[in-house]
């Protein structure tokens, strides 16, 4: 391998380690188990969304609706528990169903109605941002809220549901690892294994690279594409469940920042290990990269706009790594 190959392969990891080293020196308290766990926790929600959108990127698509799926799932969880007074299990099931249904509709629009992916999921994004406000006429949902008809909603977030956001598992140190981090790690490993080691994952990459070749090799291309959007929708709804469990209420929000951070993580992932393609490991590292950056910068009192700026710089550098240095962009 030439020096250039090494740069492409390990450049981004080296950058990440350099960043950690810098913050370790510059920011007091950056290096500790709690700090490490917290970085994972801060990226858990966007990380889960990013893993989902990776699936659509693999089949050559894109999903702009993940942010609003997450916030819609959050509203749905709150609505089910607070207004309909159901338990945590029902809330989780409803959220997952919403994610799957949105994914199916996205896939149907793209595959059968031939709407370009960006436009279909953009439409879905607007639709969901509006839809999540309809049941409460634009109010956020919390226990004791007044409904549009004047009644008071008396249900509350079940303890089991809140535990998803607040319980911590012991790991050498008691009460160290939050549920959301476990969920992130489990989903990351699942989707990584699925994409790299199963025939379904392999075929999804083939569909993304050359749809006609995949079809002539006997793959049901339409089904693969729809499944990718279902995965993306379900992952986004899991992100929404974690969000609801952390906030403890249903907040009206578009989720656009979740979307942007998740997409950034997935795109940064292209540059990890010189993959130059969407991949689950890269996405996880990309999410972590953003998390470490934000944690370090916040600890050093950098205001939010410098953080956005730095996030943008990292993304641009990652894209240059992917497209210019590895030369894949041309072929």
């Amino acid at each position, binding site marked *: 391998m030439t020096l250039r190959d090494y740069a492409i392969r390990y450049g981004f990891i080296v950058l990440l380690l350099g960043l950690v080293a810098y913050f370790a020196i510059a920011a007091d308290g950056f290096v500790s188990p709690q700090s490490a766990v917290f970085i994972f926790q801060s990226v858990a929600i966007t990380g889960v969304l990013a893993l989902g959108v990776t699936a659509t990127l693999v089949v050559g698509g894109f999903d702009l609706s993940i942010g609003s799926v997450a916030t819609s799932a959050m509203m749905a969880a709150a609505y089910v528990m607070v207004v309909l007074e159901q338990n945590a299990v029902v809330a989780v099931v409803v959220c997952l169903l919403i994610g799957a249904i949105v994914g199916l509709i996205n896939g149907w629009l793209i595959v059968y109605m031939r709407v370009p992916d960006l436009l279909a999921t953009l439409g879905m994004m607007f639709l969901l941002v509006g839809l999540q406000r309809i049941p409460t006429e634009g109010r956020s949902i919390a226990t004791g809220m007044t409904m549009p008809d004047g009644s008071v909603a008396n249900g509350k977030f079940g303890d089991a549901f809140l535990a998803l956001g607040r319980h911590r598992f012991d790991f050498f140190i008691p009460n160290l690892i939050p549920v959301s981090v476990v969920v992130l790690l489990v989903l990351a490993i699942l989707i990584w294994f699925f994409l790299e*080691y*199963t*025939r*379904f994952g*392999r*075929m999804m*990459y*083939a569909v*993304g*690279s*050359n749809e*006609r*070749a*995949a*079809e*002539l*090799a*006997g*793959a*049901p291309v339409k089904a693969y594409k729809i499944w990718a959007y279902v995965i993306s929708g379900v992952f986004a709804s899991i992100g929404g469940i974690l969000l609801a469990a952390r906030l403890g209420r249903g907040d009206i929000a578009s989720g656009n920042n979740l979307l942007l951070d998740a997409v950034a993580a997935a795109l940064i992932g292209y540059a990890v290990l010189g993959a130059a*393609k969407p991949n689950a490991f890269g996405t996880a590292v990309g999410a972590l990269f953003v998390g470490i950056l934000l944690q370090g910068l916040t600890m050093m009192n950098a205001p939010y706009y410098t953080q956005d700026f730095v996030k943008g710089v990292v993304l641009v550098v990652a894209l240059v790594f992917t497209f210019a240095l590895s030369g*894949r962009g041309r*072929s």
Partner: protein
Amino acid sequence: MVENAVFRVEGLRKSFGQNEVLGGVSLNLHAGEVTVLMGANGAGKSTLVKIISGVYERGGGAMSLAGQDFAPRKPAEAIRAGVVTVHQNINDGVVADLDVATNLTLDRLTGKGVPTLFNPSRVRRDAKAVADRMGLTIDLRARVSDLSLADRQMVAIARAMAHQPMVLILDEPTSSLSSAEADRLFRLIDRLREQNVAILYISHRMSDIRRLADRIVSMRDGVISGVFDTKPLDYEGAVNAMLGRKIHLDRIVAKGAARPVLTVEGLRIAQGARPISLTLGAGEVVAITGLVGVGKTALAETLFGVRRPLSGTMTMNGRPYAPRSAADAIAAGVFLVAKDRATSGIVGGFTIERNISLPFLRRMSNLAVLKRRVERATARRQIEELGIVCRSEKDEMPTLSGGNQQKVMVARWMAQDSGLFILDEPFQGVDISARRDIAAKLRASADNRATLLFVTELDEALETADRILVMSEQTIVGEHRNGDIDLERLLAEVAGGPLHSAA
């Protein structure tokens, strides 16, 4: 006639790297005459057209237009000098979202001395003048995207004619037109001929050629292989010159078929086409040949389940066979190496290993988890078998040469045993040694399956097949055993006309 040639090409040469595409082409075009240029894929037609229209720079030789030296460095220069080309892809010649009037006058919207403001009434007036001259009866306010392909083609040609060129080049203009639509195009060409335009018409369609040609020029392997200008025109001779008739020293020994594998009854693949019936047997290699656009790929895709026949039945190994998808076909043991590997075969982001395993992932996995060891072993075996030149099975496809890429495609489908192995244009863009390798491999492994090749080049059929079927007009028109072939008859069938011995 030679003296009054409007446009002359003398000894034109062009190479891309090592590869010589044009080896000294000479060609004359006369005013008021349609010269048809015939040539198989890779004969160098499109390179010639691109040099004439100023897209490529010539590598050697000379061109002259009306006695003046002609050396366009850009397409715009060629057009200004009076040589206009309508390319094969119709949509390159028109802007779909604009109306017909704007399209007809589009070239007047740019350049020097054009007023900054767009004047719709002037545009319509100019457009009307252009349309009238061409006898065009299309609504000038219609959007081009709402027009039929034929109308778009007319607009593209009329737009080209707005420059009042001396030479008009039409590159396969009827390839996506119906016969009624083509008739309208021919009337337009007749009109242009009367207006004394020199026309170079590139086509494989014998019906077009019979209708239009004043002269025929055949091209093969980068040189002119025949010029036919005495009436009546010798069409078979032209096809001959285009396909090339050589004595084959390495004639194969044709084998007979054992039990039948695939039986096709009354299969119709296009409206108005005669039904196809054929039987393919185990152990034999059958080649179906015919010109471009006679339905070879349509037949291949029908057998492979990605296209539905209009009528007819198929039987595989005695059982009814009606595949609804490629997956059905593969499950039934019918494999296809599709035409044009770049768009329908190669997965660019995958290594050789992963390209080979692609159709058989189910067979190479356990509860959906891939058995990577099996995958690697298969790839290594196939690389060995077909003599694919690479560093390892982990090489990415773009690093391979065209011939090796094609070998990977063949290796993919030979990794598992098939009942019927179909290859559509397997030798396209493949150098001669790779072609020999692939053909030898196909014949050596043919024993337990039926093998069916679709090839345009007659040579390839003669080199590989036990039996040769000829396709024309979406159906099979002839059958030959590759032992004592009556080439006269075969060529006549390819050319699609009744055999007349006067040729």
